[in-house]
């Protein structure tokens, strides 16, 4: 068991909140139960629908607050779940007699199915956030149009087009001595199911899955470059959100006894983000708070004159929220808690502790013999009419440094991105450890042993140093204990052991660079690509970087793409010059300095070779 002997207080806090993840949901559930058991029949009836919409809002928070994607299509899964519950319940009620929990389960499954298909389409197509949102919005439009015109019979259940499906039986179970056919019983049953679902989701969202999702939300590319197949994770999260929405739909159906295509109306779909925003996006409990508040507000406005203006009031609330209270209720709560908890933050040390690269010897293994580990053969890439990579053949070794230089537009970035998999070549091969990898995704290449450090320090700013390192450590070994060990070792090496519980955004620029290097190290790669590592560094930082690259290159192959000539000279390594996408020449930096043609390229004097 690893001992947490640094950043003590904050560390303990983290540990406690990690083990007691079930505390918040349980407290809320208890409070809700007390309310349920002591309120009037009518309010119990109403509150059941608030709880159901809370669950629907929760499903949006999962994909939006946690995943970072605004899905306007949660009501698609909600509606499908509602219809599925209706069809199953109407047909099975005579057979099953009691308990239509199975129907609720089917509601969830239908949500999984539909969201699985849509999610696969979106995430395996590697679409951006705007396209994702619009596709979910378009799904709602399609469902709304189709549902009105579609009527059919499935067994004894009749889906009646615009007239919907009526006569849906309610849940029939006994909980805590209440039969769910009463209003109180229905509320208690609904709350219990919601509690269980919420608990399961919160459990799933702990480490490691939740941490990967957090990474994806903050920086998709970085998380992919740590070796995680982000498509799978995003699809999984989307499907979870779809399942929860489907379950909510089933519960809705059992409460309303009627479902119609109006459940797919665009106006309904856009209501759910309001719930989440009111309560606080990303908090997970925010959706419930928002649904509760809006439900209560509608109730308070009543069914008369004021109530008729609900739409207007909601619109105004939405505008005000977006402008002034973007973090919603949870944001307010957090800032209050934040003020009182200031003192448990680890003190920000002014003095840094120097990284101790000697410890690399204990962490990485020196390869036995020096051999070629990565080769590109005949690599070609065109963008429109521009040739970015022109028949490039290059080899890289499993130790030592290799530099890639060339003027702007020479194709260095394209070549680098092709090696790591962000770009797929038009033709040619890439062979890594005797395997052809040109068709592999970046995460797969990382899993095979590539490490990548891009120019901008891509660390996850909202997360602590610990979490950042843990994410990369866990990626290949998939073992929590070992990951903990790696974090401790690497944090020693990079000199951030004393700042393990500090948020990455509070580190200095240089420290962030070290953290980024540490993340790559913890993957124990066999070759590392560095894109302009000297950019933006002071002379001292540059010297330190040269130092670490020399030491690193004892253990792994190091490929550096750079501009800075002093830096390259200090590396004392073989250099390849790229020009107009093709290999121009190779040699040591001294040889190249004496080559007039190389100078010509840099000064733009080159006639076409």
């Amino acid at each position, binding site marked *: 068991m690893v001992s947490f002997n640094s950043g003590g207080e904050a560390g303990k806090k983290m540990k406690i909140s990690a083990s007691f993840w079930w505390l918040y949901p349980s407290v809320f559930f208890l409070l809700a139960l007390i309310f349920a058991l002591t309120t009037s029949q009518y309010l119990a009836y109403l509150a059941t629908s608030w709880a159901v919409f809370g669950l629907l809002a929760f499903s949006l928070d999962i994909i939006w607050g946690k995943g970072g994607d605004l899905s306007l299509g949660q009501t698609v899964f909600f509606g499908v779940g509602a219809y599925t519950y209706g069809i199953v319940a109407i047909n099975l009620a005579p057979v099953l007699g009691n308990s239509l929990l199975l129907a609720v389960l089917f509601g969830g499954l239908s949500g999984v199915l539909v969201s699985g298909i849509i999610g696969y389409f979106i995430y395996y197509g590697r679409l951006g956030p705007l396209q994702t949102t619009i596709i979910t919005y378009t799904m709602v439009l399609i469902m709304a149009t189709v549902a*009105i*015109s579609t009527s059919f019979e499935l067994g004894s259940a*009749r889906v009646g087009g615009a*007239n919907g499906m*009526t*006569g849906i039986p309610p849940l029939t179970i006994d909980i805590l001595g209440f039969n769910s056919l009463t209003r109180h019983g229905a509320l208690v049953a609904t709350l219990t199911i919601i509690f269980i679902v919420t608990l399961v989701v919160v459990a799933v969202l702990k480490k490691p899955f939740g941490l990967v999702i957090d990474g994806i939300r903050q920086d998709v590319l970085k998380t992919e470059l740590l070796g995680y197949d982000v498509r799978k994770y995003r699809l999984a999260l989307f499907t979870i959100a779809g399942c929860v929405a489907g379950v909510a739909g089933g519960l809705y159906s059992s409460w309303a006894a009627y479902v119609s295509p*109006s459940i797919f109306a665009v106006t309904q779909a856009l209501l759910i983000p309001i719930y989440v925003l009111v309560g606080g996006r990303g908090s997970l409990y925010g959706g419930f708070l928002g649904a509760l508040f809006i439900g209560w507000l509608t109730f308070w406005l009543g*069914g*008369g004159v004021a109530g*008729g203006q609900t739409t207007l009031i909601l619109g105004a609330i939405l505008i005000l929220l977006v402008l002034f209270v973007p973090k919603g209720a949870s944001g307010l709560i957090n800032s209050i808690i934040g003020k009182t908890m200031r003192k448990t933050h680890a003190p920000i040390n002014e003095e840094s502790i120097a990284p101790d690269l000697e410890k690399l010897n204990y962490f990485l293994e020196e390869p036995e013999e020096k051999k070629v580990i990565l080769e590109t053969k005949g690599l070609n890439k065109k963008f429109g009419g521009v040739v970015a990579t022109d028949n490039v053949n290059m080899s890289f070794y499993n130790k030592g440094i290799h530099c890639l230089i060339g003027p702007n537009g020479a194709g260095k970035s394209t070549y680098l991105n092709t090696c790591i998999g962000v770009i797929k070549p038009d033709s040619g091969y890439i062979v890594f450890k005797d395997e052809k990898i040109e068709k592999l995704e970046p995460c797969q290449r990382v899993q095979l042993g590539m490490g990548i450090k891009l120019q901008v320090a891509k660390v996850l700013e909202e997360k602590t140093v610990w979490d950042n390192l843990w994410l990369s450590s866990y990626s290949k070994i998939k073992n929590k204990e070992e990951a903990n060990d790696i974090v401790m070792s690497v944090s020693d090496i990079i000199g951030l052991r004393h700042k393990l519980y500090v948020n990455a955004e509070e580190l200095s620029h240089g420290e962030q660079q070290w953290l980024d290097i540490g993340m790559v190290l913890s993957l124990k790669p066999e070759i590392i690509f560095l894109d302009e590592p000297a950019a933006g560094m002071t002379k001292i930082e540059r010297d330190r970087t040269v130092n670490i690259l020399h030491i690193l290159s004892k253990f792994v192959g190091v490929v550096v793409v750079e501009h800075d000539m002093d830096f390259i000279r200090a590396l004392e390594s073989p250099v390849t010059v790229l020009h107009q996408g093709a290999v121009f020449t190779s040699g040591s930096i001294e040889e190249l300095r004496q080559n007039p043609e190389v100078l010509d390229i840099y000064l733009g004097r080159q006639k076409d070779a």
Partner: protein
Amino acid sequence: MKTSIKALTTAIAISSAVPGMLLAEDTVKIGALHDLTGSFNIYGIQQSEALKLAVKKVNEDGGVNGEKVEVIEYDTQSDDARYTQYANTLIIRDQVAAMFGGLASSSREAVRPVAHQNETIYFYSALYEGGVCDKYTFLTGVTPSQQLGVMLKWAKEEYGDKVYVVAPDYNFGTISAHWVNEYAEEYGLEVVGEDFLPVSQSDFSSTLQQIQTSEPDFVVALPVGSRQTSFYEQFSAAGLKDRIGIISTNYGSGNQQVVVSANAGEGIVASQNYFQVVDTESNSEFLEMWEAEYGEISDPIISEANDTWNAVMLWAEAANSAGSSESDAVIDQLLNGVELDSPEGKIKSLPSNHLMHQVYLVEGDSNHSFNVITKYEDVMPEYEQSVCNLLEDPSVSRQFSPGS
């Protein structure tokens, strides 16, 4: 000022929007679910006004079984979910003896199971696609089997054999279209084409083209909602009214004749159980009462207002005859036939929970209003009567549609 503001002030003035908490002992409560806001509010407001006018008359005539009638009304905001919610509110919290209201068929279907589960009588007062058979739901509006039959027979004489159907693509439209086909076969008409429109459609150029390709003698048009109403405008502007007749079962039910320009509205033929221009003594009295209560009539009174008035009157009559406002007692009376004089003329309740109606055929004039062409007396809802007899089998609870 526009209808909405007027309705708001009326609602505040009449102040029955406040759910009753402390009530006098000697009242019987009825619940009202009306779309006072939202896209259907032109219907909902008039339904609400008609209901309250009827309640006032009932109370003036002595109330129900000696008790005054009190209305508890909720604004369902043209939203099905609210119908579910407030129907439950009326029953659980307000404990009403009867419920009234609903406009779109989906709103009725939201209330129907609640009424049935809780054994409370519910009156749905609007024209609709027909076929509902449920002991606790009573339908005072007219159905396609009452409107279309007489209208198609007349149209054949007037225009010719070939008919084209333009209907919204949901139950009301598809079922009505089905009835057109049925009656076409019966009367020797030929359906040369059908087009079903999505509810959101407002650009009818492709429909108009198809109509011209098929060369019908007349068109049966059933556009629903404000957007589809522009169909009449575009039909007329394309110059089609000169050579093709146009008839409808729902034109006028929502004051489309006010929206549609005078030119386009002229010559459109419609059939329903009530128009404001209907010439009966009861209607004159009804309109007088309306004006006395609400002031000069600026928006024509629609059939749904007549249907709602009739619903209240029927309920009161049945409750008084039964000596009780218990749902089962009232239903018993209704199933065995309650006859009344109403603004449309004579109406009678039937064992299918529908009404025998008077059906009027009218033609649009050049002034946003109608002239009555002819009146069909004592028209029975043939289809509903054939599939639904709640005296024989009161446990049925479904909506029949032809072909199911």
